[in-house]
């Protein structure tokens, strides 16, 4: 009994920590984008205020699938979080493989897609159709890079891949495979839905797409889901290319650096049309990734 209780507390604690960290990152990103655009920007704690406010508001729903989709999106991303090692917290990552994490993230996307299309708003459907198309764009080169790393280090667990880079900064994949790292960084910008690749949420065009109908607690849960997704994606990048970390503090700092760089680079470019985005991913990242992996294999 005590055992289950501690596990449950552990579970909840890590979820709250990651959500809080993710919201902090979102606040920083808003500030950076504002400064690049010569605005003052909201305070860094603004996302916390937003979430608190949203959970206090009355919301509307469009039927049970709308509720179910939101629950599935948030639940799926929490489940994913526990397979990614966060610094010294290995959680359940010894049982998780990279491929598993990619697919678990898909549960959250599917839940969000289902709930939001269930609202009956065609703008949401358009957003989802764009998001899924773009996903095919960036996942393909990403999986190719993962293929190379798994083949090289003979393990597919994220923890194992991070351990394989132990023993000094020069063992990081950032230095051993700089090309793959740069590609993964570009893909990370696409994954997190940052500027050049944000056609699926395009606020001025399709009313923020997937979240067009969400309000109150629905939007609040979407924000929490987004924040944990950011943590999962950044943690995956840090583990795979920056050698992981021994403790959560240095791990968070590494994630923060990657996040700031991604935000800065992203906000320099105007938005891609959706097929341009996919073509971009398939032209440069995919071809270079294939060449890189062929080098690793032979």
């Amino acid at each position, binding site marked *: 009994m005590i055992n289950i209780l501690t596990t449950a507390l552990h579970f909840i604690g890590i979820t709250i920590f990651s959500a809080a960290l993710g919201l902090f990152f979102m606040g920083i990103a808003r500030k950076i984008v504002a400064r690049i655009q010569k605005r003052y920007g909201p305070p860094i704690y603004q996302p916390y205020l937003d979430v608190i406010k949203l959970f206090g508001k009355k919301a509307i729903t469009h039927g049970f699938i709308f509720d179910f989709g939101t629950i599935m999106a948030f639940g799926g991303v929490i489940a994913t979080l526990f397979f990614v090692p966060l610094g010294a917290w290995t959680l359940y990552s010894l049982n998780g493989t990279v491929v598993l994490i990619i697919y678990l993230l898909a549960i959250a996307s599917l839940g969000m897609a289902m709930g939001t299309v269930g609202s*009956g708003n065609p703008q949401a459907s358009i957003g989802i159709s764009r998001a899924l198309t773009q996903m095919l764009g960036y996942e393909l080169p990403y999986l190719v890079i993962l*293929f190379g790393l798994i083949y090289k280090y003979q393990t597919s667990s994220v923890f194992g891949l991070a351990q394989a880079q132990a023993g000094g900064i020069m063992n990081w994949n950032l230095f051993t495979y700089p090309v793959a790292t740069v590609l993964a960084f570009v893909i990370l910008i696409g994954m997190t839905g940052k500027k050049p690749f944000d056609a699926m949420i395009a606020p001025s065009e399709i009313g923020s797409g997937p979240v067009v109908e969400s309000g109150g607690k629905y939007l609040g849960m979407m924000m929490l889901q987004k924040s944990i997704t950011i943590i999962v994606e950044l943690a995956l990048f840090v583990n795979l290319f920056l050698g992981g970390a021994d403790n959560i503090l240095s791990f968070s700092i590494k994630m923060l650096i990657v996040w700031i760089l991604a935000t800065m680079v992203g906000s320099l470019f105007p938005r891609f049309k959706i097929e341009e985005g996919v073509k971009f991913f398939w032209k440069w990242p995919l071809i270079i990734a294939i060449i890189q992996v062929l080098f690793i294999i032979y």
Partner: protein
Amino acid sequence: MLINYIFIPIIAAFFAYLLNKKGKYIGSIITSLISAYILYQLIGLYGNWSLSQNINLSIMGNDLQLLFANNPLSWLFGIMTASATLLISIFTIKSQENYKLSSAFNFNFLILFGSIIGVVFASDFLSLFIFWELMTWTSFYIISGGKKAMAKKSAYRYFVLSAVGAYTMLMAIFMIYSQTGSFAIAETANYLQGISTTHSLTLMFMLALPFLTKAGLFPVHIWVKGAHGNAPKEFSPFLSGLMLKVGIYGLMVVLFLLPFSKVIENTLSYRGLSVFSYLFALLGAITTVTGTILAIRQEDMKKLIAYSSISQMGYIIMGIAIATPLGLTGGLLHMMNHLIFKSAIFLALAAVIYRTGTTKMYEMGGLIFRMPLTFATYLTAIIALAGIPPTNGFISKWVIYQALIEKGYLFLAVAAFFGSIGSFMYVFKPLSTVFLGQLKPQHEKIKEVPFLMQVPMYILMILMVLFGVVPGIQMSIISKISSFVGMEAVNYSLFTIEGAYGAWNSLIIFNIFTGGFVLSLFVFILARKSKLVGLLDTYTSGEYMNDAEAYHFAYQYYRPFDRMFDSFAAKSLTRAYESLAENIAKIGNGIRKTVITGNGQSYAFYAILFFVILAIAGWII
């Protein structure tokens, strides 16, 4: 024993045909009883691997032996056939109320069932061929009974392609027979060990062609879309779930039971795999990519899922062709899982067609509030198809990935990844356009399907989650098959499978998934209750919106993606085959015109020419 299981359905078919005239449900009841009985009997055969039976025939003084034997591979396919037949015939009891040809359907369906049992338990090529032909004929009749005008043309195309394959196989069988004097697979295997590589290659492709056709592999996949899309709605699950797999069974016989791979191993190889096996795997990869791209474009939901079947068959063939323990395991696992989730998808679509009478996705929408169970079945099935844990589809895809990465087959892996991520796109399209979104005014009064049609869907849903959490059940038979074909088995337990670079533990994943879901549910429930509003009460940028029909985004759902592949899709392979056929017909016509002049003298000339040729031939020989 074994022979009974083949002939009981075939005899019952006549009774089903006659009794069905009295009431349209009787034929299906007979089918389900027979298949339940045979399923029960086959389960009892587990472990009885030495069982064999012969039929001795004497035709015009020639003694012929038809051999049947039980082995793990045949057993698995027998069980799959019987269970698929059972589920579909339960579904059919209610769904064929208004189907004119239901007597013929049940007649053919029972014979088809018997003949597939015959194909999988045959241990000589002659009986395999006989039942193979019976299978093609009966399925041809069932497909041509589809409601659409295109059904007959599609059935014809299916039949012609199958026939071409079947006759090359027949030729190969007789070539072998003329050398060995036996049709038995075991003796053929002995004979093949002593022949030259070229000869063996020719025989391999001749024997494999009908199976590749039936499995819907790349250059001969063109029948799949039409046949699946236009067949009677109850038959599509069987066609896609099971009949494509019979092709895989044949391919397994060719690649594993016959020693072709050993003969060819000495020729060229690529990363430890003979080039010809790699070629099969590469065809699988092309199949996956083509199927995915074309599935995303479809506006007809049955055709969309038909293309998805093509794409998934590519995975299975990739797994089986690379012939590593992991690859074989992954291929077989995916084959079983594909049967389950694809039958579930097609049954859910059949339920939709039963209520709405259309297969065009843009003519539907918002059915979730009218048919929640059908929606739940479809949702579970697509989660499995897209390979998302904790369902069965993820495990098999994961094993195939492990197999591809282990050997470093990058290009196969890229195709597999493409097919997998692409499958999110195409399975979401029917979900979004048929089940979600705005309900059409004419579908306002639709109800959920009758209980008997729900039963198979419940069973399939349970199976998808069960095998997703407890893959050990499937692995126990697969490990038997692995040792039967002389391959190392993969380490497994009830909840875990060991890959090359990491293990899979479904129990932990299921628990954490449940934990995440419960936590999320708590957050949702603890927050303030929300107010329910209608589907038309949405953000419309200030427009007034009263027309549900116009407010549904369904047609050309992935237009930006399709735009990239417009030129690719315009190059239709079907059209290429058709123009080839036309050209051959033109040449034939030209020859006919010059030869058949209608002039008596020229015919006399041909007769003389014929004798002259005969005389010269006789003189030379």
